[in-house]
């Protein structure tokens, strides 16, 4: 990266100490002129797509058209019989996908809100990428849960609205809460995605022409960058950052209640709430790192914004979350096993030794063994392709975990006469459809909105400097405002 240093007006900290490798390593210490950075972001977004981009779009659209539109229409018309759900596995991959996508969506909030609240500065260049995952992931979760319903055309009955039949949704049911929680989360995360986007949209508005200018003009809500506007924006973002954290925790906790509140062996576990939250973060962080690696590899100028230090930082988080997940898994397993209920014991045995035993072991390897083996090494965890493989494996492992909790555990119940394996049917195209739609939305978004919150990066760069404490050089941040 040969950037001309004389243009780096705000890089006084780096100048002062002259620590070259620190600057290369840390985005915050490697400032570029504001205009140039804005141009880089605009360029990466406006870059004329190559034929490869269109091919990928076409393939994804085809998958969405077949998997999501056609298959779903067919399933609505013919009934859930074309899926693989049966007695006793009444819930199948649809619910697995729902939990999975909600899990994915946790990463955005975690990175954006929690790290913002805790002022983890490395978050700055990729909060937007993570928040987009939240919103788009929730869209897929919504699709998945609606697919799951036998009569999806009546799903509005789950919403509390006054009606002359004097009927309300049943507030005893975890599913009702689930729906409310997911809706709340979708709305709040969309707003939380939008708020920090406003200055960037204003920036894009000022630097574009034609329909894009109109588009950004509408979305930027007339943001001009006055002091008052910035103050309001910061306040709003602060409120949201704090408010969305309990929402995020509640969503996956309530999702876990769908299982924990049921009278089934293997499900009624009090630890499911935090276990699910940690599981969600586990898959979410894995997904974030994959997305970052892809963005970095495919989009222009991204190597400037997303650096090894970010992979390193997320890698550390992944390692910690993996450990937390392992702890919860062990705790859950231990108590279930210790409980000694004959059906639960049967179920645990079935998990390990039954026909889906391979999945159980794969889950442990992908979720624990591989992250631990790779992420402890700073060099390895700073290698984008390696961590993104770990990220993919964690996601596979977490999908397996949900698969084991839902259809595999449903196989075993208190009526051995009804035990039966679950074989997916139309769930596979539908599931792939949601995945393709997620990627498609992301690709379209990458061409429409700035993926890098450039104002946040600039803000960070202004506030950072290197300080020497004895022999150690440390990156410090001075409080803004």
């Amino acid at each position, binding site marked *: 990266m040969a950037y001309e240093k004389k243009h780096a007006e705000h890089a006084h900290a780096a100048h002062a100490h002259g620590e070259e490798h620190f600057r290369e390593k840390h985005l915050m210490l490697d400032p570029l002129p504001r205009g140039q950075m804005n141009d880089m972001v605009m360029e990466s977004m406006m870059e004329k797509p190559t034929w490869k981009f269109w091919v990928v779009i076409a393939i994804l659209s085809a998958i969405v058209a077949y998997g999501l539109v056609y298959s779903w229409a067919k399933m609505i018309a013919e009934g859930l019989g074309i899926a693989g759900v049966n007695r006793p596995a009444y819930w199948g991959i649809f619910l697995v996908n729902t939990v999975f996508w909600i899990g994915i969506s946790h990463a955005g909030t975690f990175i954006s809100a929690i790290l913002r609240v805790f002022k983890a500065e490395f978050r700055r260049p990729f909060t937007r990428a993570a928040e987009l995952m939240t919103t788009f992931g929730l869209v897929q979760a919504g699709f998945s849960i609606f697919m799951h319903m036998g009569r999806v055309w009546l799903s509005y009955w789950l919403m509390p609205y006054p009606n*002359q039949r004097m009927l309300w949704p049943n507030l005893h049911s975890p599913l009702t809460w689930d729906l409310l929680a997911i809706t709340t989360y979708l709305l709040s995360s969309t707003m939380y995605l939008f708020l920090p986007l406003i200055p960037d949209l204003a920036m894009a508005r000022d630097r574009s022409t034609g329909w894009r200018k109109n588009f950004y003009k509408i979305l930027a809500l007339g943001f001009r960058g006055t002091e008052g506007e910035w103050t309001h924006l910061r306040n709003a973002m602060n409120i949201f950052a704090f408010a969305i954290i309990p929402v995020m925790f509640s969503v996956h906790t309530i999702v876990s209640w769908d299982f924990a509140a049921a009278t089934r062996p293997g499900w009624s576990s009090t630890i499911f709430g935090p276990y699910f939250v940690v599981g969600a973060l586990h898959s979410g962080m894995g997904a974030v790192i994959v997305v970052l690696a892809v963005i970095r590899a495919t989009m222009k100028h991204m190597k400037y914004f997303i650096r090894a230090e970010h992979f390193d930082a997320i890698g550390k988080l992944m390692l910690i979350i993996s450990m937390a997940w392992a702890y919860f898994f062990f705790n859950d397993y231990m108590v279930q096993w210790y409980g000694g209920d004959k059906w639960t014991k049967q179920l645990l045995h079935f998990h390990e030794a039954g026909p889906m035993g391979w999945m159980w072991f794969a889950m442990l390897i992908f979720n624990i063994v591989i992250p631990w083996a790779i992420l402890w090494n700073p060099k390895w965890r700073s290698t984008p392709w390696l961590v993104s493989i770990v990220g993919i494996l964690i996601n596979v492992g977490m999908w397996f975990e949900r698969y084991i909790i839902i259809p595999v555990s449903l196989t075993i119940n208190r009526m051995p006469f009804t035990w039966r394996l679950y074989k997916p049917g139309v769930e596979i195209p539908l599931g792939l459809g949601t995945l393709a739609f997620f990627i498609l939305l992301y690709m379209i978004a990458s061409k429409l909105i700035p993926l890098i919150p450039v104002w946040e990066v600039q803000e960070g760069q202004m506030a950072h400097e290197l300080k020497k404490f004895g022999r150690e050089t440390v990156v410090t941040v001075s409080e803004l405002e």
Partner: protein
Amino acid sequence: MIKRIFDWLKQPLGLIAVGIAVLALFSLAAYGIYTTQQPPEQPIQFPHQTHVAFGIQCLYCHPGAAKGPAAGIPSQAKCWGCHNQIAKTQTSLLLAPLKDAVTSGTPIEWVPVAQVPDFVQFNHRAHIAAGKNCEDCHGDMSKVTIAQNPQVFNMGWCLNCHVETAGQDHEKLVKLSDCGTCHY
């Protein structure tokens, strides 16, 4: 291209066109709802008011209402019991279908007017026994020709009356507001 369309729509003529389109859509929807609430076409333009005016009781032709779930449509034999003694039957154009049906032995295909969906188990007897009169639900038949519903038979309407009927009687309320009373 898109811009040109937008520009055109923004001018007064365009706005009027949009207004008309919206109005047309609304009226279509309203008309659709309206048609579902209209008395259907019947094979015979049966004049209820004439029969009521002769002093014929509802239960004479629809005796099932007092005995069981369905009020029933009278058999052709019952129609003919009176009508073959009425000279007008032979000449009236309106009554030709009845004459044809009886002589040819083909049943008349009536179109039911007061209907509840099949997931509602309605029992006339219980309602008559509870002191309801036919006209409470079916309207005043002395004023209509072909039967038509004075209101939409939906759950809110049913439930309203059930709750009112129960009043302060708790046991009755339990029974009358139980899902299983009508749905099974």
